[in-house]
């Protein structure tokens, strides 16, 4: 059986949790007091260290497409908590909740993502599956 994906019952619950402290860098580049949600189509997933990056094409209200970049935890951390490199795949329509970048670049720190089948992926996990 495929390992159970890390799920949260409610996005609100997931997004109100404190972020995982990162060994690698501080959160200074992100606005940790803000939270945004966008919907788009996954363009590419970098399943890489020291962080995964999920690139999502978003159609803005002007009609133009913007590619957003979302930084997640490491493949090391996530692969022990239900994620695989194909948990999010190019072409999937997803909504992503994130802490925006302070410098205004499109994207930010990944908080949670909802897949086409309604599954919610978070950066947390943990052995209790929280």
């Amino acid at each position: 059986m495929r390992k159970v994906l890390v799920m949260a019952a409610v996005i609100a619950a997931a997004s109100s949790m404190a972020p995982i402290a990162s060994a690698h860098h501080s959160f200074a580049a992100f606005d940790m007091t803000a939270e945004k949600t966008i919907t788009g189509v996954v363009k590419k997933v970098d399943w890489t260290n020291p962080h995964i990056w999920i690139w999502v094409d978003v159609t803005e209200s002007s009609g133009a497409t913007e590619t957003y970049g979302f930084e997640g935890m490491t493949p090391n951390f996530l692969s022990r908590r239900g994620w695989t490199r194909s948990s999010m795949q190019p072409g999937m329509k997803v909504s992503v909740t994130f802490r925006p970048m302070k410098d205004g670049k499109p994207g930010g720190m990944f908080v949670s993502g909802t897949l086409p089948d309604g599954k919610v992926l978070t950066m947390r996990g943990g052995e209790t599956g929280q």
Partner: protein
Amino acid sequence: MMTRKRLVGALLVAAITAVASWTAVDAQGFKTKPPTPADWSALAKLPDFSGVWEAVTVGRGGGAGRAGGPPRGPQLTPAYAEKKRALEGRRAEDNETANCLPPGMPGIMGQPYPYEFMLTPGKVTIVGEAYMQVRHIYTDGRPMPTDPDPTFNGTSIGRWEGETLVVETGVFSDTTNMDRNTPHSDKMKIVERFRLTEPDRMTIETTVTDPEALTAPWTTTRTLARHRDWTTREYICEENNRNYVDAQGKAGISLKDSPAEKKEQE
């Protein structure tokens, strides 16, 4: 075909290399004995530290990076308190780990990533997954070298006190910090006591002393859980690092060569 000039050059390089390696061996000094079958069997009598361990609070929130962290910070001498104030005054948004430089000891043992322990005759090896760091702890009775080169993780000598592995580590690179914004002197020493409290639980009690920087020993305790179903993974920090901190301490994100940047150029 090798010209005469090239041959002379090659011979010179070979000669210099030979001298350099001879010097290095001389500086390292301690020659290990080939392990005997009895040495290998003796390992079975030691506590079983084998396998992959991670701090128990990782993934459960509450600041994984400080898992089981210090009850209080290091007690600094006035001179080092002043150094800390000066560093804090820079208001750096991040430190060099954002640029993929490992933190060195003791920070490398406080990561929210696993550690793999390996016992071989006369040695304990700890692989820290974060930044793929390796600690070599010699338990073969050799003394602490008199004048080792300063390094990020220091030079470690270990001994078994009953069921506890006691590790003394010293001589650290002056580019690393004892704690956030807290430098150490060249006299910093770290003593770690590793022991099993349950079959799959380990505690590490870490005591930092530094006669120039600290007015009292700084002791912290961390609890690790063993995960028999885990392996350590590769961690190449430079693989796709988009985080950075610049010389002024400003943190940022680079989208260079990313799908987002390519989009901008279209």
